[in-house]
């Protein structure tokens, strides 16, 4: 990628996130996301022992990874990466094999239950073309989400990354996510923490099927 091109990224300041789910609602409305599937959602965890209990929230969405494993494994090249770093899905090429969903370590892709092809967050690329911000960023009431061009040193995201320590989800996957978090608690980022594993395993599929039945 040349230095003059754009490289989109998002910074989520979790110190500001209130876990209000406005980003999820805005995304659903903007992108016509059907019930029972999500392009972004907020994982919420309580941590501590009374009276020292704190609520943590973590907005999760596609990380539009620099080293996107979904792009590598897509058999029809329906998933592809634009020069600006956004990972897109061509609905005309997607066969709905779900292999990208199996490969994604962040579970952020879904098969549209109506249209039957894979979908995910693409930083509202259609809005970016109009000079707008992604719907979640624009809707966030606490200003926790910042979006912009990392190659522009004057952009808000670039300044946030320079001035704050940031983390990404599952760095061990080697996917180089482009969604950065400020103040990420390691426990909320851990899928095994705060979960009654036996209960989860027992009901994982039932819960999913139950939601689909709705």
């Amino acid at each position, binding site marked *: 990628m040349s230095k003059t091109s754009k490289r989109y990224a998002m910074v989520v300041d979790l110190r500001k996130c209130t876990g209000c789910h406005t980003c999820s609602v805005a995304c659903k409305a903007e992108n016509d996301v059907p019930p029972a599937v999500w392009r972004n959602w907020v994982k919420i965890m309580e941590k501590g022992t009374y009276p020292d209990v704190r609520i943590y929230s973590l907005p999760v969405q596609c990380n539009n990874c620099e080293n996107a494993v979904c792009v590598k494994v897509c058999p029809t090249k329906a998933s592809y990466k634009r020069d600006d770093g956004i990972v897109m899905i061509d609905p005309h090429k997607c*066969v709905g*094999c779900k292999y990208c969903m199996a490969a994604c370590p962040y579970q952020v892709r879904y098969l549209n239950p109506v249209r039957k092809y894979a979908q995910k967050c693409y930083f509202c690329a259609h809005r970016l073309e109009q000079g707008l911000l992604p719907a979640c960023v624009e809707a966030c009431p606490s200003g926790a989400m910042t979006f912009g061009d990392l190659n522009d040193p004057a952009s808000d995201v670039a300044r946030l990354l320079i001035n704050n320590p940031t983390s990404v989800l599952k760095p061990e996957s080697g996917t180089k996510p482009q969604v950065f978090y400020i103040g990420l608690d390691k426990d909320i980022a851990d899928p095994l923490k705060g979960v009654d*594993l036996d209960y989860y395993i027992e009901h994982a599929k039932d819960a999913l099927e139950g939601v689909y039945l709705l």
Partner: protein
Amino acid sequence: MEMNVLYNVPHAFALSDLISTYFFLLGVGGGCSLLSIWATLTGKTDYKPLAKLGAIAVVTLFSFAPTLLIIDLGQPLRFWFLMVRGNITSPLTWGSFFLSAYPLFASLYIIFLFLGKTKIYKPLAVVLLPIAIGYVTYIGFIVSMAISTSAWNTPIMPIYFASAAMVSAIALMTMVGIARHWIMTRKWSAEQRQSDFNIIIKLTRFASLFLLLNLFFVFTQQVYMRFSSEWAATAAELMLKGKLGLNFGVFSVLLGTIIPLLVVAIPKVNKQLVLLFITMFFAEVGIFVMRFAITVGTQHMPIM
């Protein structure tokens, strides 16, 4: 410190029951063709019925196994995209190549095998050999390259799945061979019956080799996962406890691998055809359960 997740969303199961069944059938078919090729290339006349039996199994299984794959697609009518739009880094593209090349060469091989044209089917067997190997291993690469689930993302998957394919193929051939021995050899001479019996016994010996390999792979996978990360270690535990443990640990490892190995190893017992038939049935079910437990069962682990 107490921690509770108050809100999260369930993740969709990317690989369905249909896919695990497809993996199983594809393994059986590919394993049968490898067995048939082996019987052909060794050139022993004793193995000729074995080669033909394997060929019949290949045709039967290939005729409906890929249908499951197509049904599982969100866009089944676009299945041909997989053939024409390749992505060299995707194991599904490798699979599309093998799924296209395999029926072509396998059918030519089978036709000439049944026509008895040795000069043609032997070179075809040589050509078919790497295709059949690719055919049974590519499904292992599919799960191995999916980094979302720690039980899949291990380097042994391709060879483990190939070994499992061989067990399922040999188990099927042995069961069909035993049924054939009971039904068709009544009017044969004692010498012919003994020769047929010997082939069945050799098949079970062959099965024991791959069963042993499978056991080694289960051990290797468990060790690898328990020492790689906390998440992988939890997945390794999950495979041996609870419902999945009952499926994988009891049906696949104990009944489907260890018991058949013991039966084949014990002298005199290993010549009881009824017992061998039951044992091979267990081995077959064990491989089906193993495919299911690994592809579908391990998806019960939380990902985010």
